[in-house]
């Protein structure tokens, strides 16, 4: 006879306890974070640690509140990340219609104060101004517009081109496959930053050409992923069965293979977005990406060079945080998608 399985007894927090502790943690955490960000009592390093601790406590508090509301554990970090993505994508999409300050007209900026400190909500410049008197909040939002547009465009090109080339080469095999393999390996062998700098010297620094240059980074890995998935799918019996019913190669590829390959490719694409947001920022930081006065997070961070950051940290902190949160959120989303759609774990 089988022994009864040991039941793990876990103290179940009641809803009321969760609610109270959650609220307390949230309040204490946010208070700590706000205090740490404004105080001048502590050394910068300690201030930062206290700030992070406060934020973590607030997130833990939110988690408890969410658990109290839903009755089961909730991945708060993931949902906060998604909220950020919705916020930043929405703001970027609607930027021209939002009541924002001056983001790129340096002539108009002559009349505005330069390096105005962040004034908070309701002030003329909620996140301050830069050395041309341009509004940092407006620049961060319009920067999101360029950064995300470039990354999305590049991923779109990379996914469509790389995915199709990979699928065809994995399906046709033979010489085509070998040629594609050599080309994609050659692209992978060139260090990405060097490739980008080389391209940056040749191409004019417009959104379109930066997107094209960045898409070259995604194509080889997309080709590999699509090709590998196509090879496994093409060996499945249902492809043979469809062939035995008279389907031609085009139809086999589009109707049998493509629907099975599209999910893993898309989940890699989401991860790629965050990689490319960083890549675009690096290029613009180095001055070979989008040029001033058009804002991107990369060239905004670059404005902090030459002692500016020591005097006015918000110049760097605002785009830095935007960059960090966006990349972090896209990564979480991508990981989720890959976990869900990875062909290795899918039971087909």
């Amino acid at each position, binding site marked *: 006879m089988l022994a009864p399985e040991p039941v793990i007894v876990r103290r179940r927090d009641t809803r009321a306890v969760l609610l109270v502790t959650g609220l307390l943690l949230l309040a204490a955490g946010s208070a700590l974070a706000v205090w740490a960000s404004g105080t001048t009592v502590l050394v910068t390093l300690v201030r930062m640690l206290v700030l992070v601790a406060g934020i973590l406590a607030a997130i833990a508090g939110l988690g408890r509140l969410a658990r109290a509301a839903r009755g089961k554990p909730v991945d708060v970090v993931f949902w906060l990340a998604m909220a950020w993505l919705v916020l930043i994508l929405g703001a970027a999409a609607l930027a021209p219609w939002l009541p924002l300050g001056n983001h790129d007209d340096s002539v108009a900026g002559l009349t505005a104060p330069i390096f105005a400190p962040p004034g908070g909500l309701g002030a003329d410049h909620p996140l301050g101004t830069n050395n041309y008197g341009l509004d940092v909040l407006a620049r961060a939002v319009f920067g999101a517009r360029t950064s995300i547009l470039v990354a999305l465009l590049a991923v779109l090109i990379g996914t469509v081109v790389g995915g199709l080339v990979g699928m065809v080469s994995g399906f046709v095999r033979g010489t085509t496959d070998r040629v594609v393999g050599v080309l994609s390996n050659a692209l992978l062998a060139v260090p990405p930053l060097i490739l980008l700098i080389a391209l940056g010297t040749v191409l004019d620094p417009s959104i379109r050409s930066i997107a094209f240059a960045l898409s070259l980074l995604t194509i080889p890995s997309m080709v590999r992923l699509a090709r590998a998935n196509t090879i496994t799918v093409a060996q499945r*019996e*249902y*492809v043979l*069965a469809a062939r*035995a*019913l*008279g389907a031609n190669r085009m139809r086999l590829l589009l*109707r049998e293979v493509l*629907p099975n390959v599209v999910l893993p490719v898309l989940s890699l694409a989401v991860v790629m977005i965050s990689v490319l947001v960083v890549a675009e920022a690096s290029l613009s930081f180095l001055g070979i990406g989008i040029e001033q006065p058009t804002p991107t997070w990369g060239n905004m961070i670059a404005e902090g060079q030459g002692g500016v950051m020591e005097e006015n940290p918000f110049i760097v902190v605002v785009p830095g945080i935007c960059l960090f949160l966006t990349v972090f959120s896209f990564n979480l989303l991508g990981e989720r998608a890959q976990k869900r759609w990875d062909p290795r774990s899918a039971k087909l």
Partner: protein
Amino acid sequence: MSTPLLEVVDLRTVFHTTRGDVRAVDGVSFSLMAGETLGLVGESGSGKSVLGRSVMGLITNGATTTVSGQVLLEGTDVHALKPSARRKLWGPAVAMVFQDPMTSLNPVKRVGTHLTETLRRHLRCSRSEATERAVDLLRQVGIPEPARRLAQYPHELSGGMRQRVVIATALACDPRLLIADEPTTALDVTVQKQILDLLGSLVAERNMAMLLVSHDLGAVAGRTDRVQVMYAGRTVESGETRPVFAAPEHPYTEALLASIPQLSHPPHTVLRAIEGNPPDMARPPAGCRFAPRCGRVGEDCTDVLPMLSVVLGPSQREGRREVACHHPVLTDPVLTEELGHGR
């Protein structure tokens, strides 16, 4: 006699591999009339499935494969056609039911899509007509609530139901010839019977010809008109099903039949398995392919490859019987007696 629907003449399929040429099918001939069912039996690796696929033209001449001989489907040589013309045959003229219903349906496509896509491509009918026909097909293969099933995905159905869907897709364009490649191997025993009964009744209703490829002698015995026993890519015996199974001429057929456990056997009877394995088809033995495993092997067996020839003997009375053996079981009484004494 009318012309046969399918005539296979000296079909050979050779795969060129790094180990050398593998002769998966090595000179097989048969013919099949409309409404007739032929069983292809043999153990794993005897070339049955490759034969089925070569007959259909799914395996054809290519960089790594050579197919020679003729496959005449309604008078046209399948292997001489251009690929696009051959594809036109697949569906309306010949269709295939595959072994494993778990893998022969695309997991991301609905049941209905599998059916309507084929229908619309071959019959060029509208979406609503195709749906109507799909419902009708699912009803014909005995699927309850056919209209609801169309919207379901393959994983929502049981193995038997999925195999019925596979059969329905194969039948979508009313093929004259159905090749069933181990259609019941992946199924439960009770479901096996249902599927075989279904195939039998569909063949009778539609006056189709069916090639039933199976290693399951029981599946073949009850539902085929004629049977062809394969060993190592060659036909070793062929004839009408009942007499072949009642009184096998080839030692391999006899051994296969003897290896089936019987209900009448007392418990703990040792199963009479056939010793050894089928030969390596890249290096087949000289002489009879079955000689190394045969209980009736003579001196000539290891030197001379026996040809398939009509048997003149006791089994001749019940239809035409062909066997490829130097010492057939029934018609070589001398050796039979010698062996009998030896036992």
